[in-house]
C-alpha cells in the first residue's frame, strides 16, 4: 500500500511538534553548547599553544603532546589510570552482581542489608576518603586488625582446625546413624565451633600453643613507594576504597535488572535440574546483558577519570604512587607552584578523553554490549 502524500496540515503539525521538541531541548542544548562544546573546542585550541592563563598564547604545534610522552609523571598517570580502571571495574562489577543476587533473595532483614550495603555510596567521596586515610594510617584500624590476625593466627588456626575436625566427625556419626544431615548443619556447626574455641583456650592456657602479642603490624599503606604485584600500595588502597564505595550503586542497577528477569526461566532451569551456579551463569548473567553493559561502561568512565581520591591522598602519598591522568591534568595547572601549564594540561585532558572513548568502545566490541539476551 502506498502512503498518501503529506498534506499541508500534517506537515504543519509535524513542524509544530519539531519546534515544541526543540524548545524543550533548548535549555539542555544551551548548557551542552557552553559547558561541553565550547569548552572542548577551547581545550583543543589550548593544547596546541603555550597558554598559561595570563600570557597571550603562542601556537606551538604538537610540542605539548610530544612533551607529555616524555614526562615520566604523565606516563605513570596513564599506566595507573588503565590498571586502576581494569581492576576496579572488574571487581566492582563482579561484587555488585553477587551482592544483588544475595539481596534479591527473600531473606529476613532484607531491607536492612540493602540499606547497609548502600550507605558507602551516599556518603561524600571526600568524607569517605578522609575516614579511609585514618583507617589505613600506620596505627589505624586496618593495621590493628591485621595485627590481631598476625598475633593470634596460631590460636585461630587451631580453633578452626579443631572445629572442622569435630564437624566432620559429627556429620559422619549422624549419617552413619541414618540421619540425612547437611555438611554445614547449623546445630552441629555451633557445637563444633564451641568445642574448637574451648579446646583452643585450654591449649593456650596449658602453653601448647602461643600467640605473638609483641608483633605490631605497621604497613604504611599510603606513605610508601612499595608495590604489590607491580601496583603501588597507595594506589591499591585507593582501589579498595573505590570498590567499596561504588559497588553498592552498581548493585542497585543489577537489582533492578534482576527483578525484570521472568521467573519462568528459573522454573524451567529448576525442572532441568540446574545448580545455583548454572542458573547464575546461563540465566541471570545473559539476561542482565544490557545492565551489565551499563554497569561496565559507567564503571570504566568513572575509574579512568578518577581524581578526588588521588587528589586527597596525594597530600600524604608520594605523587608517583597515586598520580592518575585526571590528577595529572590538575597538577599541571595548579600543583607546581609556578604559572599554570594550561597547554600541557589541555593536551593531557584530550588524551584522557580519547582514552576513555577508546576503552568504552573496545569494551562494547569485545565485552558486554547493550544488546539483550533475547537478540
Amino acid at each position, binding site marked *: 500500500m502506498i502512503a498518501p502524500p503529506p498534506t499541508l496540515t500534517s506537515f504543519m503539525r509535524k513542524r509544530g511538534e519539531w519546534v515544541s521538541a526543540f524548545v524543550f531541548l533548548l535549555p539542555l542544548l544551551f548548557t551542552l553548547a557552553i559547558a561541553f562544546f565550547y569548552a572542548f573546542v577551547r581545550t583543543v585550541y589550548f593544547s596546541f599553544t603555550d597558554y598559561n*592563563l595570563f600570557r597571550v598564547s603562542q601556537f606551538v604545534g604538537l610540542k605539548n603532546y610530544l612533551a607529555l610522552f616524555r614526562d615520566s609523571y604523565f606516563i605513570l598517570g596513564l599506566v595507573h589510570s588503565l590498571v586502576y580502571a581494569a581492576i576496579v571495574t572488574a571487581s566492582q562489577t563482579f561484587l555488585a552482581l553477587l551482592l544483588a543476587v544475595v539481596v534479591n533473595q527473600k531473606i529476613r532483614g532484607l531491607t536492612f542489608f540493602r540499606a547497609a550495603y548502600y550507605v558507602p555510596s551516599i556518603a561524600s567521596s571526600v568524607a569517605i576518603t578522609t575516614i579511609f586515610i*585514618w583507617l589505613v594510617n600506620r*596505627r589505624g584500624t586496618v593495621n590493628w586488625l591485621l595485627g590481631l590476625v598476625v598475633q593470634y593466627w596460631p590460636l585461630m588456626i587451631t580453633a578452626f582446625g579443631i572445629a572442622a575436625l569435630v564437624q566432620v566427625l559429627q556429620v559422619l556419626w549422624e549419617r552413619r546413624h541414618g540421619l540425612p544431615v547437611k555438611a554445614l548443619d547449623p546445630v552441629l556447626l555451633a557445637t563444633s565451633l564451641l568445642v574448637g574455641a574451648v579446646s583452643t583456650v585450654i591449649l593456650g592456657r596449658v602453653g601448647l600453643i602461643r600467640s605473638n602479642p609483641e608483633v605490631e603490624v605497621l604497613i*604504611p599503606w599510603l606513605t610508601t613507594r*612499595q608495590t604489590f604485584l607491580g601496583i603501588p600500595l597507595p594506589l591499591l588502597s585507593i582501589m579498595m576504597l573505590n570498590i567499596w564505595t561504588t559497588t553498592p550503586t552498581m548493585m542497585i542497577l543489577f537489582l533492578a535488572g534482576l527483578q525484570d528477569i521472568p521467573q519462568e526461566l528459573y522454573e524451567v532451569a529448576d525442572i532441568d535440574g540446574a545448580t545455583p551456579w548454572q542458573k547464575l551463569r546461563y540465566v541471570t548473567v545473559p539476561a542482565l546483558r544490557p545492565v551489565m553493559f551499563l554497569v561496565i561502561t559507567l564503571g570504566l568512565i568513572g575509574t579512568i577519570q578518577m581524581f578526588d581520591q588521588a587528589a586527597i591522598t596525594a597530600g600524604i602519598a608520594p605523587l608517583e604512587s597515586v598520580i592518575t591522568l585526571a590528577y595529572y591534568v590538575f597538577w599541571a595547572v595548579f600543583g607546581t607552584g*609556578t*604559572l599554570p601549564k594550561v597547554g600541557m594540561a589541555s593536551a593531557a585532558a584530550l588524551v584522557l578523553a580519547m582514552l576513555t572513548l577508546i576503552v568504552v568502545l573496545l569494551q562494547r566490541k569485545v565485552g558486554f554490549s547493550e544488546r539483550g539476551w533475547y537478540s
Partner: protein
Amino acid sequence: MRKFLVVFSLIAVAALGVAQETVTIRLAGYSGDTPLMQDVLSRFVNGVIPGVQVVWEPITEDYLAFVLRTLSAGTAPDIIYVDLYWAKTVVETGLIQPLDEFMAASPVISREDLIPVLADAFTFDGKLYAISKDFNSLVIFYNKDMFDAMGVPYPDAGDTWATFLDKIARVSNPPEWYGASINPDAARFLPFAFAAGMPFLKDDGTAPFDLPAAKIAADWYTSFNRAGIAATSADIGVGWPGAAFIAEKAAVCIEGGWLIPPIRNENPTLNFGATFLPTVWQGGPRGNYLFTVGYGMPVNPPSGRPDLVFKVIEVLTSPEVQEYILESGHAIPSRKALLDSPFFQQLDPFALATKTVFEATGLPGTVPFTFGDVGGGNYMGVVNEALTLIMQGEATVDEAMDEAATKLNEKLGL
C-alpha cells in the same frame, strides 16, 4: 497627596544616593582566619570607614589556585592575600598592582613603617606588590611537664643538633608520649639543610639535594623517626605535629606562631615553652624560614575604587589593628613600631612564645619562605618524597637525596 508624593520621592532619591555611595569591597582570605577577620572588620572597618562595606570571603580551596583562577577570569576580589611562598608567581601574571603610589600618598603607612625584611620580601623589580600583614618563623615548642617528668633539661637556645637529639631521645616515653612529632615536611627540613650549608640551587642552577650538606641534614632530620623517638602526626593519629603537641602525645614540635591560638583554645593549661631551632654545632649556623602574608590588590579591583581598597588595606595594617591582632595572640605585626609593644614584656607562656617567634625571625640564617621561578610545589614535593622514603627505611639517605636531585633537575628541564 501631591505634597506627600513629592516628599516621598525626595526621600527615596536621598536614600538611593546614600545607598549608591556605599562601596562594597571584597576581601578574600584563608578560611581559618574567619573569626579573627570578621571581628577586625566589624571593629575597625565596617561602619568606621564612611561609605565602605567590606565583605569577608573565606576561601577553602587551595588559595594559589583560587588567586590564579580569579585573576585570569577577571573575577578576583578587591583585596587578596599574597603569600610570600608564591608571591613571585602572582606578580608575574601582571594582574596585581604595585602599591608604591598609594603608599607615597598615604598619611597612615609608608615603607619605612614596615619591618625592612618584610617590605623587601614583597618587592619585585623595585616595586612593592603587597603590604605584609604579619609574619612568622619556626621555633621549638616543648612541653615542660614531660621534660620535668623525665628529668631532662628543657631545649634552649644553646642547643646544637647533637644535644637536641640527645634531649629528645631522653624525654621520649612511648606509648605515653614521643620525644617529638616530626613529619617528612620540606618546610621544616629545609632551614636545617640551609644551616648545614646547602644552597637553594647549585651555582650551575641544578638541584642541591645531592650535596653532602643536604645529606647530612637529611640524615639528622630523619634520625628522630628512624630511632623511634619521634613519630609523624599520622602515626600519632592526628592531623599535624602541632595537634600531637597540644594533645600531649609529643614533648616537642617544630612550628610557628600559628600554634599559639590553638593551644590557647584547646589546651589552655598546657605548661609549655618555646626556644630557637638548634645550631648545627656549638656557636655554629642556625637556619630558619620567614613566613609572611600580605594584602595585595588586582590591577582592576571589581569595586572600581582602588583608592578605597587601599584605604581598607591601610586600616587593616594600621597600628591599632595590628596591636589588637597581636594581643589576641593571632600573629606578629609587620610594623616596626609595634616591636616595642608592652605585650612582648608579659611573662605568660603565650606572650613569651610569641616573643621567641618574633626574635627568631631576626636571627642570622633566617631566609624568606619563597621558591622563585622553581615553584614551591616542585621543590618541596621531591624533598617531601625523599624524607618519607628515608623515614620509612625504603631508601638510604644517599639514594633518596640523589633521586630528589635528579627529579627536580628533570622538572627544571636540566
